């Protein structure tokens, strides 16, 4: 891939050719946070090594791909709960199976309490070049409420450790709008993180997911539910402070310094293709979406016994693909390149003419130089727009 192509990819704009990605799932955490409904499991240390072996086995037996991979993403869970050498081994297996191109973005998620400078050095040594750190907040009461195990200082320390270890790209994840957070908590968290000058900041509104301890607290009125109006206020503060600090919002929840958008992220939003390895991992190829067995133990057994790990799949029709691609692409600030969209998804836009027109007339969508995008008014109520285009 040319330098120009890489630059284009990292601008954060929608891509006609989103490249190809690999997602690797590490379904373990030392402790499950109160809001989390991801596919992750506490403890099970006895399972870690077995899972790593299975994961490597899964990668090795996969059909592989000659298509050059432009990004690899290790997510979780807490990937950094595993020793660096295990992570290195998995990454090497991926490299053996898939043609990971030079200059590809290779990200690993990390939780502050699991990392230090030597850990980052080992990860960089293994080939990871982008670390995404779960900071979430710098306010102690918010961290406690969310059930995070690290302090604010440890979070800041993690960013610094990644930097001094030489990480090319550092992302800080933040969560806003939790019931424990005041407006000044949020401002302070943003300012504290901005001061560490990460390359990329993701800020997610706290969502109360069914089945989580947080949902139970809300249902039993022990804490108030999240207030969408408060979250909207917080979002506006984030946009204001981050823009001021030179971060460009390229997607609804993602900000980056110029040229530092996450390629893997953009791949998702551009409806690209990706492999998914590991328990409960999702993959996508040309309209076929598939996912694997969620329980790590069952996943490992399947690999060990030579069975398929696929738990389910769906094949989207052409129009459904187009709708989904719009749902994803319009989340990007750039919106979608309508001509390129037509080349990729056929008459998907034309067939939505009346809906698009109504949304444009209502000021919720706008067209600029052949690109179709959300208006500033509709960014925060994107669901209202997107569900009309499915």
């Amino acid at each position: 891939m040319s330098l120009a192509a890489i630059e284009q990819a990292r601008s954060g704009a929608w891509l006609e050719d989103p490249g190809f990605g690999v997602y690797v799932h590490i379904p373990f955490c030392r402790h499950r946070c109160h809001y989390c409904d991801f596919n992750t499991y506490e403890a099970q240390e006895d399972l870690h090594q077995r899972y790593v072996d299975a994961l490597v086995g899964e990668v090795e037996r996969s059909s592989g791909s000659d298509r050059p991979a432009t990004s690899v993403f290790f997510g979780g869970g807490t990937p950094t709960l595993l020793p660096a050498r295990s992570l290195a081994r998995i990454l090497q297996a991926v490299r053996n199976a898939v043609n990971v191109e030079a200059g590809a973005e290779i990200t690993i998620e990390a939780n502050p309490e699991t990392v230090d400078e030597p850990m980052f050095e080992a990860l960089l040594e293994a080939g990871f070049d982008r670390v995404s750190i779960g900071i979430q907040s710098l306010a102690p009461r918010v961290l406690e409420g969310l059930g995070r195990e690290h302090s604010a200082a440890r979070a800041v320390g993690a960013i610094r450790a990644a930097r001094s270890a030489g990480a090319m790209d550092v992302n800080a994840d933040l969560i806003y709008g939790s019931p424990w957070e005041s407006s000044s908590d949020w401002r302070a968290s943003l300012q504290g993180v901005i001061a560490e000058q990460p390359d990329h900041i993701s800020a997610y509104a706290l969502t109360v997911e069914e089945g989580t301890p947080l949902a139970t607290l809300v249902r039993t009125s022990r804490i108030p539910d999240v207030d969408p109006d408060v979250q909207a206020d917080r979002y506006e503060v984030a946009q204001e402070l981050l823009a001021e600090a030179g971060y460009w919002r390229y997607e609804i929840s993602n900000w980056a310094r110029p040229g530092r958008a996450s390629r893997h992220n953009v791949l998702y939003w551009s409806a690209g293709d990706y492999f998914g390895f590991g328990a409960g991992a999702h993959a996508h190829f040309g309209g076929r979406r598939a996912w694997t067995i969620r329980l790590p133990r069952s996943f490992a057994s399947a690999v060990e016994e030579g069975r398929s790990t696929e738990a389910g799949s769906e094949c989207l029709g052409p129009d459904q693909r187009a709708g989904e691609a719009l749902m994803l692409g319009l989340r990007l600030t750039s919106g979608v390149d309508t001509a390129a969209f037509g080349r990729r998804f056929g008459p998907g836009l034309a067939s939505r003419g009346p809906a698009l027109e109504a949304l444009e007339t209502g000021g919720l969508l706008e067209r600029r130089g052949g690109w179709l995008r959300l208006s500033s008014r509709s960014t925060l109520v994107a669901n209202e727009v997107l569900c009309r285009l499915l």
Partner: protein
Amino acid sequence: MDQAHQRAFAVISHVDHGKSTLSDRLLQLTKTVNERDMREQYLDRMDLERERGITIKAAAVRMEYEAADGEVYELNLIDTPGHVDFGYEVSRSLAACEGVLLLVDAAQGIEAQTLTNLYLAVDAGLEVIPVLNKIDLPAAQPEKYAQEIAGLIGCDPSDIYRISAKTGEGVAELLEAIVSHIPPPSGDPDAPLRALVFDSYYDIYRGVVAYIRIVDGSLRAREPIRFLATGVDAEADEIGIMAPDATPIKSLATGEVGYLIAGIKEVVQAKVGDTVTTKAAGAQVQALAGYREPKPMVFAGIYPVEGDDFPLLRDALEKLKLNDAALTYEPESSGALGFGFRCGFLGLLHMEIVRERLEREFGLELIATAPSVAYEIELSNGERRVVRNPTDMPDPGTINEISEPFVSIMVVTPSEYVGTIMQLCQERRGELKEMHYLSPERVELRYHTPLGEIIFDFFDQLKSRTKGYASLDYEPVGLQPANLVKVDVLLNGQPVDAFSTIVHREKAYTYGKTMTERLRKLIPRQFFDVPIQAAIGSRVIARETVKAKRKDVLAKCYGGDITRKRKLLEKQKEGKRRMKQIGSVEVPQSAFIEALRLDQEVKAP
């Protein structure tokens, strides 16, 4: 049987005052039903069996009774509908009688509806035999209630029969009284046939069964007949008597009571109050007095909750109409509720009954708009117009005067609740017409009040404010001009038809405020601020705002799980599909239904 040996009577009574038990005793003592076949509540059970198609309705029962004088008499017990909305039907049943038994629970005293029917009977010149029932009850106070009744009908308390229908005590004496006090019919057996239809219903196997009293002349089976009011010609396929089972006979003579089956398919062709004559006599015969077209008084839009059920609702109304001459319906459509029917009912209870039958017998889930009455509008150009649906109200600028139907309501209550009831009636713009102490403890109150004021929750209020002791009856007394206005409810400037209503000007603000507040809680937030206004014409009287939705976006995508994200949005999209569009505002139908439901706590008295 010759006229001198015929008696026709009805029992005027309140629910639970013992009419069914008394009927049982009469059937037994006259040996109309033999001991082996006797069951409790015999006639009521026949009604249930009729509903299941086993037997036909016993709207009148013939009994043969050998009196103390050694003569055999033919006694016809004529049933009266026991519902507040069926005053006209009661009057026709009474018109088929020469006398009534006024049956009053000796532990409760007379109730409003009984009182109304008593007045009807007295006005019709019928012989009234006062009876206190349940004297065997420990709580019975026959002396007290005898005073009450004596005061009402002007008899001596000692003339009042005291019975226990349950034990049979005093019933034999009552039978004698029926023979001796109630006069025989006085029709002319040689005149052309005139028979009064006092009840009719549709039977799925037999078609319409009409119950008739032969006033003059006689009717033979197979004779060609004519219904004078409807002009329907038919043939008397079968005539018969209920004794208590349907028994076909060859002819009915002057004064006799029986049923008539004439191959008629809808009750609207054989209406209550109509006169039956022979086809031959048709042109010369004068119809019996007192016939009235059934006139709906209360109107409401009825809509299926599921729009797909519209054809089912139409079929169900068609079926009910076969058996209900008073029910009217015509299709209408509402921006908020979709397609439905504007239905007309005799009154509130009739509306409740129809709605319940539609839901129960036809499995429909329904929503009704707030009930309305028929307003008469006089336009400034002199034109007069009847408005049954508030959305049809002409522009206020073109209206000279609006008149609304008034009713005379009668409440019988323990005297301690008089103040409470007066307050309630005043709130409903009632005007006190009469207050009459039946006894020191019980009062009869008469008010004139707009019908529109009692069709919401008046019955409920009356019951709850008097711990259930007050009873109510009402009858229409014509139209009166009133200071009425139409209040519209607007969403983002667009009127929502289902919430338009016609109210007295003084109540417009309360209505507007209630509805706007209620809708603010029910209408989901949109992209933009949605003003909810209540307005009289262009003047806004109440306003609320549904603040614009500020955040509705999924935060992130979990490890490439796009499927989940799409499903969430598909769910949201599905929700949108079920929304109604009022201008640019999307409202789930459930919000409208919820807002209307809050008004529908109207229950039968």
